[in-house]
């Protein structure tokens, strides 16, 4: 078993351990999960290190390649008669997403330290979900990809339905059904590709060697893009996300907004654009319009919110719009911005939702106007919130800035296949949302943390405990690391991104 197989297997094995422990040993379950996620984090570090060692001497070759160059490939025939293989590998983009997920699940398991209802089932489902997410990021066989993709979506239903708050059953059902309808369209697209290629394989790299007819690309691309767009909260398919996020328990919100929504952007880039470059060119402007609506609509939506979780969820819609916007620019800088934004937003929202969960656990309210002056009693939380908030409004020095700059630059450069004025105009509109973001973030933070304490009861509140400090601290530090040393991240992903972008320019018209 290679390194990547272990990366998928460790959460699953941890889950099996959790399942075997009697439910009343909930303390042990907590420790086992945290330990398993810790091991995973170590594995991920090894992965990054080894990837770096193997990839850096070949940077130029990767950059000029027409197909993604994969490392640590494992390939075992699975259903040979249908051309299905267990085919996993990573390129720079995958590695960055694995790092993101690994961080979020580790901190998420710490942030769930105080889940005391049905702890065993909670952690088992959480670990199952993460297994699926890791699987998606390393799969290069469409069948395998789809299998992991749905595995990542489904535990969500129970996680929100059982441990959620508010109208949890409604939210869980809505989320599950919408995401699965999205994946149904993805599935149709996969079959279309499989049969149109005539190669009798689900191997992503081989499918990419075929030039599909323009007519074919014209209808398959939007299908796959929208299918992934649903999970990436593409307007108007985003409605599940505010409900889902606000009803979900802390770790699930973290994972969902932090990681699961990234599957959308990842799939759109890795599969829709990669396999169907001509389709991408035809539809780029249309999806750019939709993602601009995402950005603007999300930020205005956030201004209106009174509930902290809804507030963050709408800001997520806006920020995920940046990801899709970046993908729709169809140029290297835009792609880079999209991937950076996936990472940055993942960490940022993870931090936000972790904090909201912890603050809610103390104040028992998430309504913004009911809070006030909390910085006096919980300075740690306040600091962390500020870091997250400033990253979200794109303050230089934090990761959000780097990502958004790239996305907008991508928009300004535009692509030769869309109307130049239109893309420029859309970019300007999207840029305006930064101001709106600044308004709602600063206003929200000021209301919650500044000023006098509005409720006597708040005086008795305690600041963060050790697991809480650890989880939020790690995430906040990551925001700084990416913000201050963006080249670390850009070097990791750039060559792979260029390889995808190359496909757009070299893929010929039949």
């Amino acid at each position, binding site marked *: 078993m290679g390194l990547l197989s272990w990366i998928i297997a460790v959460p699953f094995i941890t889950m099996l351990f959790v399942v075997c422990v009697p439910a009343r040993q909930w303390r042990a379950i907590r420790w086992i999960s945290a330990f398993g996620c810790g091991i995973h984090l170590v594995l991920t570090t090894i992965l990054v290190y080894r990837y770096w060692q193997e990839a850096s001497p070949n940077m130029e070759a990767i950059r000029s390649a027409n197909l993604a160059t994969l490392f640590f490939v494992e390939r075992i025939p*699975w*259903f*040979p*008669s*249908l051309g299905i293989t267990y085919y996993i590998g990573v390129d720079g983009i995958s590695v960055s997403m694995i790092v993101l997920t690994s961080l979020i699940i580790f901190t998420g398991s710490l942030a769930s330290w105080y889940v005391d209802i049905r702890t065993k*089932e909670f952690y088992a489902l959480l670990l199952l979900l993460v297994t699926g997410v890791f699987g998606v990021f390393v799969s290069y066989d469409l*069948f395998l990809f*789809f*299998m*992991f993709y*749905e*595995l990542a979506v*489904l535990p969500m*239903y*129970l996680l929100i*339905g*059982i441990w959620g708050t508010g109208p949890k*059953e409604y939210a869980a*059902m809505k989320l*599950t*059904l919408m995401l*699965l*309808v999205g994946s*149904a*369209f993805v*599935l*149709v697209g996969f*079959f*279309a590709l*499989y*049969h149109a290629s005539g190669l009798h394989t689900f191997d992503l790299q081989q499918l990419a060697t075929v030039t599909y007819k323009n007519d074919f690309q014209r209808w398959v691309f939007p299908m796959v893009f929208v299918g992934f767009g649903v999970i990436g909260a593409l307007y108007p398919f985003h409605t599940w996300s505010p409900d889902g996020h606000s009803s979900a328990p802390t770790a699930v919100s973290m994972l969902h907004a932090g990681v699961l929504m990234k599957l959308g952007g990842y799939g759109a880039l890795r599969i829709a654009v990669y396999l169907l470059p001509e389709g991408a060119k035809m539809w780029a402007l249309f999806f750019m319009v939709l993602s601009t609506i995402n950005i603007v609509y999300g930020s205005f939506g956030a201004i209106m919110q009174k509930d902290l979780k809804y507030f963050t969820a709408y800001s997520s819609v806006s920020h995920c719009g940046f990801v899709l916007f970046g993908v729709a620019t169809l140029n290297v800088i835009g792609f880079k911005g999209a991937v950076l934004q996936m990472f940055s937003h993942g960490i940022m929202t993870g931090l936000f939702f972790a904090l909201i969960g912890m603050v809610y656990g103390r104040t028992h309210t998430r309504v913004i106007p009911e809070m006030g002056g909390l910085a006096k009693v919980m300075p740690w939380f306040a600091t962390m919130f500020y870091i997250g908030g400033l990253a979200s409004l794109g303050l230089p020095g934090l990761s959000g800035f780097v990502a958004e700059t790239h996305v907008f630059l991508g928009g300004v450069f535009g692509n030769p296949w869309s109307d130049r004025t239109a893309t420029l105009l859309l970019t300007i509109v999207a840029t305006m949302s930064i101001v709106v973001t600044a308004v709602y973030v600063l206003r929200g933070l000021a209301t919650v943390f500044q000023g006098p304490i509005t409720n006597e009861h708040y005086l008795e509140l305690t600041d963060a405990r050790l697991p809480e400090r650890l989880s939020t601290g790690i995430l906040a530090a990551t925001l700084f690391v990416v913000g201050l040393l963006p080249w670390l991240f850009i070097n990791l992903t750039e060559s792979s991104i260029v390889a995808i972008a190359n496909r757009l320019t070299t893929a010929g018209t039949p």
Partner: protein
Amino acid sequence: MVMLPEIIVIVTAFAVLLADLFLDERRRVVLAPLALVGLGAAFVAGLAGTSSGEVFGGRFVIDAVGWWFRLFFILAAFVTVVVSLDLLDGRTSVRMRGIGFRGEYYSVLLFTIAGMLYLSAARDMITLYVSLELSTLPLFVLAAWRRDHAPSGEAGLKYVIYGALASSLLLYGLALVYGITGETRMDALAAAVTKASPGALWFASGLIVCGLGFKLTLVPFHMWAADVYEGAPTPVTAYLSVASKGAGLVFAFQIYYRMLGPWLQDWDLAIAFCAAATMTFGNLVAIVQNNIKRFMAFSAISQAGYLILGFIGANAEGVPAMLFYMLVYVVTNLLAFACIVWFGNETGRERIEDYRGLAQTNPMVALGFMLALFSLAGIPPLSGFVGKYFLFSVTAQAGMHWLVAVAAVNSTVSLYYYLRVIRQMYIEPPAEGATTLPITGTLAVTIGVLSAATALLGIIPFFYETIHVHTISWLASL
């Protein structure tokens, strides 16, 4: 011995009947083990025995596909006997009157299985029809088994009337085919069909397809299913949903691949509409059901819609996809029904709401039931997903992407109602005073084994690949 499994089943059926005659009530507990031993022996004989061979001058033939169906049927019967044990031996928490007569029950069950086994091996129209009747008639009796329970009687009656109607349509169709071609042997008949007069053949094929639709519960021939499923004793419902559907599929195979194949190949669009209507209707109506058995009936209807996707395009991948799906469906649906039978035995309740909080009182059974429902909904990595994936692939290969979209969206709709049950088990708190319900060893083992199979069948490529190899050579030999 080509016919060994069939002979074992028949002998066992008579042995059970005779033993019932000579044993006193106290000793009749040996009947079920007797039936199980017989079925086990038949299974082994089928598994180890030849996968090709013929007797009666080529009128009874075992080939690769027949070999697989044999195993499915015997497996289904075996599990049905196991899940019937508690009910028939009176080991239930709820006293159910009118159930009993173990000897007759097991022997009638064995006779239907014998009929189904013959059905897959028949190569002559007359044998085909007779074995179809042998597999169906005892089912009418089984459906009405709880004599003093009005819905059971109603189930039996409805089943008889609809069944007789379907049979008569079928017989009429077959008679017309005989009239047109003058042949009863299938191979000769298939050759004659290609040069027969179209008008009458259209009519005959239509009639046959109607009869087939009844067996497979395709819309609009599905009317009987819900009432019969609801009224019949639960183990019989389990058997109906699996073995009877299997028989329908075998029969469809006979018609499609051996008799009217070249003729029906142009019916792709009709099959596609029928499949789309069946899965959509089954799913939409299942949403509003409150009785778990009716719910499973509509679920079974929609599953039939997926199943027939394999006939579209008449390509080589369709046969292994359908066979594999049948295997998965047998295992998964029996798992679901094992849980329903157990719950009914212990509480006497059948409403979906009654399952509330099961995950907390009986976590292992709830887990098994959830696996079954997720698998039926087609959620990876469970076997139901893989089965559907292959079927959808066949449809896509035929260029019917719209149908794949309909089917895939339907899977999502189906997830909605399967989640209703899962919600009751996992999200709703248990009723006040609910305690852990007892479970007998046999049922616990059955649920455990079937759960493992449901989880693993799709991941282990062995089964699909073996079916694939077998069926490719089978298609070549047709």
